[in-house]
């Protein structure tokens, strides 16, 4: 039996962006949040190091500097008007979080504590600046908890463990969504004036990943199927420091506190790749450096990993060499106890998964798939835009990792994921409520469930010759090898052929569980369909872009090519094929120039 609901604003996703949107939308509109997880399980909670904002609590800093660093970090592919807006708004958004009760770590004078992070600099000295506002090494956890607490206080309506399968569009405008209630298997129609998609990323496309099982790109895949393009999908960030094999993230804050990367010869190799900021260069730069070290045989014991060293004697040795000082001008020196107090969760991960103590032993790390710069195209108000001319689709909004504003361009700076989701989550919520106040409900389609049923029936109809887990494994492997840190035309063709083969084989998948209650097998199969679509779009966009920019490193086209490629890609899925288009990058103050650290 189908259940029908009506809300002015429906938010899909209960992570940081979704909850932020809910807080603000609910002030002016009847709002509901639909999440496939309990909201506190969302992946925002895994963010560690901090949220960037130029509060200047420990040293001089300005939103303009944050803006420039973000533009440069994006390898000039970010839209500068949106970046400027985000970096200005970040300051107020962080104060908002503090006022909501977020327990930030504190400076001796009681202000929000800040630490250095990759790519964030004093624009005059070009040295790292303390801009990342943090709560130990669980900043994302505290943001997620604080927002959920405030949602409880404000009595926001939640539909927990509802998997949204389809977006309804009528008369060219958003009309609502269709969802499966996981506990019963029932389908629900949510009629809405405005829909905010905040479903997070799709890092489960890759074998070694820091991303949650839930990160299957549901929102982007769902909108692609409804004719909305995905923007800049060739840009996916590989974080340099994931725990070997498991991919679990070791925050950049470890290097912010003075940790360094070393190869098999014990060399601090980042000196050669980023002479000024060394181990605090941008993530794309460091991930490539690690790959090059490994390729030249300097991985540990010749294998595919290097070491992260945060032992106090090492930190102090290099702090002295670098002339690093504390805010009061005294030399930067640390004890094991101080390091442990700054990174308690990392210490726990090292003990649990590696059986090592990070202040006494070296941490084996390798780059890990981490963050989608690309996604559903939006403007800086969170409105979804659907073509080369940025035409708005009325009533549809998106925010957080699934959206592409674009503020991260070709490479996101550390801390800016949290900045993105608090700022654009807030504005998507505000604008969705404003839109709803002035709009009527679109009529529902004649059979709102039609496309949802088709998708589910197809998964139940296969002959069972293929297993979801097997196809998934093969996809992750080829995507990590050939659509990873480095790419070539040949490798991209290999990956594309493989992904298309997997899509064919996916038609044979059969879901053995015929039940309705918590049919997780059916949901996993549906999620794999999303991942395969996004893997194909990623590989096609990467093959077309014959340059290297940010996280997209083509070995056969090693240079950035602004004359031909200073533009965003748009990818449409049409009749099972990918069609590409392009739109210009917004450049305001900062002309593209060579990017060095």
């Amino acid at each position, binding site marked *: 039996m189908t259940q029908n609901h009506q809300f002015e604003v429906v938010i899909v996703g209960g992570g940081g962006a979704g909850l932020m949107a809910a807080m603000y939308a609910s002030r002016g509109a009847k709002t509901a949040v639909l999440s496939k*997880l*309990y909201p*506190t*399980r*969302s*992946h925002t*909670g*895994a963010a560690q190091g901090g949220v960037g904002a130029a*509060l200047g609590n420990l040293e001089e800093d300005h939103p303009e500097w944050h803006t420039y660093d973000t533009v440069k970090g994006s390898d000039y592919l970010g839209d500068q008007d949106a970046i400027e807006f985000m970096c200005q708004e970040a300051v107020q958004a962080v*104060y908002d979080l*503090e*006022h*909501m*009760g977020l*327990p*930030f*770590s*504190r*400076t*001796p004078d*009681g*202000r*929000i504590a800040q630490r250095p992070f990759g790519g964030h600099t004093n624009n005059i000295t070009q040295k790292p600046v303390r801009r990342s506002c943090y*709560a*130990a090494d*669980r900043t994302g*956890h*505290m943001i997620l*908890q*604080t927002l959920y*607490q405030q949602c*409880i*206080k404000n009595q926001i309506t939640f539909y927990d463990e509802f998997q949204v399968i389809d977006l309804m569009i009528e008369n060219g405008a958003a009309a609502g969504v269709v969802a499966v209630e996981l*506990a019963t298997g029932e389908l629900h129609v949510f009629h809405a004036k405005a829909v905010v998609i905040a479903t997070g990323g799709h890092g489960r496309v890759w074998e070694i990943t820091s991303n*949650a*099982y*839930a990160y299957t790109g549901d929102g982007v895949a769902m909108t692609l199927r409804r004719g909305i393009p995905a923007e800049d999908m060739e840009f996916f960030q590989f974080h340099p420091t994931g725990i070997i094999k*498991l991919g*679990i993230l070791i925050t950049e804050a470890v290097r912010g506190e003075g940790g360094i990367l070393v190869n098999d010869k014990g060399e601090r190799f980042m000196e050669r790749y980023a002479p000024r900021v060394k181990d605090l260069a941008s993530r794309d730069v460091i991930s490539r450096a690690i790959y090059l070290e490994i390729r030249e045989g300097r991985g540990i014991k010749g294998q595919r990993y290097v070491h992260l060293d945060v032992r106090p004697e090492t930190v102090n040795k290099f702090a002295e060499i670098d002339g690093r000082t504390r805010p009061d001008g005294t030399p930067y020196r640390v004890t094991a106890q101080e390091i442990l107090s700054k990174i308690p*969760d990392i210490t*726990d*991960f090292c003990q*649990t*998964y590696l059986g090592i103590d990070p202040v006494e032993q070296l941490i084996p790390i390798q780059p890990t798939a981490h963050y989608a710069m690309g996604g559903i195209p939006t403007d800086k108000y969170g409105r979804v835009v659907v073509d080369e001319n940025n035409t708005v689709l009325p009533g549809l909004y998106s925010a957080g990792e699934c959206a592409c504003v674009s503020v991260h361009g070709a490479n996101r700076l550390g801390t800016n994921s949290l900045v993105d989701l608090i700022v654009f989550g807030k504005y998507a919520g505000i604008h969705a409520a404003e839109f709803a106040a002035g709009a009527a409900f679109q009529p529902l389609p004649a059979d709102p469930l039609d496309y949802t049923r088709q998708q589910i029936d197809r998964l139940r109809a296969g002959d069972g010759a293929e*297993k*979801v*887990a*097997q196809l*998934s494994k093969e996809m992750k492997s080829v995507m990590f090898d050939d659509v990873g840190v480095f790419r070539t035309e040949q490798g991209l063709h290999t990956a594309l052929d493989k992904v298309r083969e997997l899509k064919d084989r996916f038609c044979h998948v059969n*879901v*053995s*569980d015929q*039940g*309705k*209650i*918590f*049919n*997780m*097998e059916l949901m*996993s199969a549906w999620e794999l369909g999303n991942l395969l679509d996004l893997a194909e779009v990623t590989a096609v966009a990467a093959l077309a872009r014959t340059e290297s920019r940010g996280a997209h490193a083509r070995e056969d086209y090693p240079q950035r090519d602004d004359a031909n490629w200073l533009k965003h890609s748009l990818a449409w899925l049409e009749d099972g094929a990918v069609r590409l288009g392009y739109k210009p990058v917004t450049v305001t103050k900062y002309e593209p120039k060579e990017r060095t650290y």
Partner: protein
Amino acid sequence: MQIQLKIFRYNPEQDRKARFDVYSLDVDPTERVLDLLEEIKGFHDGSLAFRRSCAHGVCGSDAMRINGRNYLACKVLVRDLNTSEITVEPILGLPVIKDLIVDMTPFFDHYKAVLPYLINDEPLPADGKERLQSPEERERFDDTTKCILCAACTTACPPFWANGRYVGPAAIVNAHRFIYDSRDRGADRRLGILNDRDGVWRCRTVFNCTEACPRDIKITQAIAEVKRSLVSGKLE
């Protein structure tokens, strides 16, 4: 190494009562119990149902009873269990819906009952910036900010098993997180709620909660601090 994995199974659409399925697996000692469950679901029996998301102990989805003790399945490795026989069951004290999935509604209802959010209606600082809080004031409630609401503590608590009306350790941990936050003004209301037959006084100091917590929160101590504040009337 070779292990024997016993998994609790119950499908309300088919089964009149629960059973255990047993699998023999060749595993690496460094694998997570969650990896074993994924292996079973992926390659042996797709109908196995359990919750999981982050797979590294921060989202709180996969609290389970493993060899008789509550763990997050993603945070316990095969070698940690020191045995080749591994039994996985749903956490106790909440209704089982299917296999390892329990109904979390009573748990979240208890959480919501203790007003788990900052209460402070005083004007914000005139400059619009942060409220000040010293590092020492911040440290006072640091431990209880780590809670991920996984329910490992509450469902390891004998008084909770005996009486589901007891708010349970997780709710008290989250009340503690605000009661001792120097910015909060709602301590009296929360202490009033906890000073009840179904509040802190049901705690029998068994320490099961502290042992079960995957975030190493000193839960029994936090509960004791709340009790002490109720007796002394002071927020120390």
